């Protein structure tokens, strides 16, 4: 059984430095380009292609198919991050709580009730920290050969920006799109979805 596990450097750093056993460890806040340079990702219309700012990287647990641990059914789906300590990361979906144990890298619902089921961890960028600047390019879709990206700058303010904008590109010129130093290579794009590779982040 192949296990796909992609845990960010930030999460690994938590594992390495955490000392307390029962204490919850807050996710670190750091300057983040997300996804990281070199990563390939797929996004739907309206989702951020690349973001840069001070934020927490929040992990999600993804279980691709229905599983079972003893009598308990573990439905496939995305489980939200709830908490983390030195031993394990807790994820939830509805009333179901799952624990990812860091040493054995298996999924448990309680002590000794574990499974080596396949799963993956995906990080998402949490709320940018107040008073810190954030830049984001958002996929707005593709019509013909023209692709549009929304560009947003935030400064921790919930209601900004009041005005919206988007930049348009002609894909027949090149599959590499650049804006304010950020460069992404379009692998495949439809009007609803884009797969792309991050070549560089926003310029400071």
């Amino acid at each position, binding site marked *: 059984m192949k296990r796909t596990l992609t845990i960010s450097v930030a999460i690994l750093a938590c594992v390495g430095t955490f000392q307390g056993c029962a204490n919850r460890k807050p996710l670190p806040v750091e300057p983040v380009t997300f996804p990281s340079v070199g990563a390939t990702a797929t996004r739907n219309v*309206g989702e951020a292609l690349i973001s840069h700012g001070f934020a927490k990287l929040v992990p999600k647990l993804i279980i691709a198919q229905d599983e079972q641990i003893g009598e308990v059914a573990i439905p496939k789906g995305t489980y939200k991050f709830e908490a983390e300590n030195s031993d394990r990361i807790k994820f939830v979906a509805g009333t179901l709580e799952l624990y990812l144990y860091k040493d054995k890298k298996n999924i448990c619902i309680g002590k000794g009730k574990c499974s080596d089921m396949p799963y993956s961890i995906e990080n998402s960028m949490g709320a940018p920290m107040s008073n810190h600047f954030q830049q984001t390019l958002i996929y707005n879709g593709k019509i013909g050969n023209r692709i549009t990206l929304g560009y947003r700058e935030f400064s921790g303010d919930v209601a900004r920006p009041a*005005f919206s904008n988007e*930049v348009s590109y002609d894909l027949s010129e090149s*599959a590499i799109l650049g804006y304010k130093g950020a460069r992404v290579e379009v692998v495949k794009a439809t009007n609803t979805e884009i797969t792309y590779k991050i070549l560089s982040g926003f310029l400071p």
Partner: protein
Amino acid sequence: MTAQAQPTEISSLNVELTQMLDASIYDEARVRQIEVRASYLLSKGLADSGSCYMAQFLAAHITHNEAAAVQAISRAVANPVCSATIIQNAVVVLSCIGRYDDAVPLIERMVAEHPDSKRILFSAIIHLQLGGLIARAAELIEPYERLRINDPPGRWPALKDAILSSNKLLSESGFSDAMVGERLASAVDFLRTHGTPVLRMSRFTLDSGEFISQLYIKADPEQCAHLNFDIADMLVDKFEDPGSAVFSIVCRPHADIYYTKSLAEGQ
């Protein structure tokens, strides 16, 4: 080196204009250059017409030419496949010049055309809130949350809480969206007649049980302070209901956000 696609000229021009508006820093000479360039691109068919009209109405708004802004907006949104970005910006400009009756149908059009778009629903909620249409913004919370069910909370809980609390406060005070809109339109008119048109709306805030709408204008703090007293007097004189006890409209100098940003960056 691998070739890199550049943004189309008209989209770069529009980003320049929206960033000026969002930062409240206006280079009017540059705005006029952009206006001329957008007209040229439109006349030669070198760019899509909707984006050219958007550049025209944003530029006209910055240079306080309301008639030109309204005319360019009506041309921009006449296109049945007009982009949501054009509609969003048209809504903000119409709100800033107090034309809520024209803004509301555009928001409804955007929502009707893209009912499954998180981005559009979020944008509609923000713009409704900015325009004082709080009850309608509150109605869109549920459909928006259905679309963002797997998303991290981000800024959303704070915004949602502000809208719901505002809506509760306003409805308990017997205020409707239309009544809020009338007051905002009166304040916008008042500022315009005093030579300080509104270029950007900030947001509604709740402070000690009072609901405050902020309008950014080009004025120094002292002038703004006087205008705020005058706006309050005008609202009390014009509206006989007790709404002034819970709802205030204040203008703020555009440089104020600059100071705020500088302070934040210096921390």
